[in-house]
């Protein structure tokens, strides 16, 4: 299955893109998405446990992802 990974701000700069498709086995979790990301150039600049949202809601490493989900890797927020 495929999920869409969104990257923002410093993380988008690190990976050189703001959006990419990641292929995963079914029953995958957020941790699996992050593991796939880590294989990509620039991913060494991501922290060990970045914030993640699945379909616009904060999630944890163990959260399930499904085909078509939008998985966002979220740098430390700095609004205000």
């Amino acid at each position, binding site marked *: 299955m495929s999920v869409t990974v969104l990257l923002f*701000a*410093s993380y988008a700069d690190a990976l050189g893109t703001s959006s990419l498709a990641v292929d995963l086995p079914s029953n995958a979790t957020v941790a699996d998405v992050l593991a796939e990301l880590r294989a990509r150039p620039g991913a060494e600049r991501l922290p060990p446990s970045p914030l993640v*949202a699945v379909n*616009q809601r904060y999630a944890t490493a163990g959260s399930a992802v499904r085909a078509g989900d939008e998985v966002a890797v979220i740098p*430390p*927020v700095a*609004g*205000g």
Partner: protein
Amino acid sequence: MTPVARLTRDPIDPTALLASVARPRHGAILLFLGVVREVNDGRPVTGIEYSAYEAMALRELAAIADETLARFDATDVAIEHRLGELALEEASVGIAVAHAHRGVAYDASRWVIEELKRRVPIWKREQYVDGTREWVDPTGRPTEAAVGGERR
């Protein structure tokens, strides 16, 4: 009525924010503006670029507004965050809070800005006098929020 919770690329209009929370039952209306400050972490700043995960930021802003109504009984609230390139002294965030009495209004206003800074997926890239730019990481280097006029 659904509270105002929005992102904008236009300058924030404080008068419109205040009007959106005005009700006959309120005796206090507070306006908080976070504005771009000229120095952050000792470095001279010339401007800030704000960006967001817009769909989620809107969802979180709306959730904060709804939670404000639940936590601070009979409060009205309006939250607006600016995106794009901002110059010094421009407002990046505007929060209007109204309540029958000032005490609750002050508490609610403070709660809204702290929640916004904690959980709304918005980022800022500072531009410095020397021409360099850098994403601000409130957790990763000994810096404080560049706007808001207070330390976290």
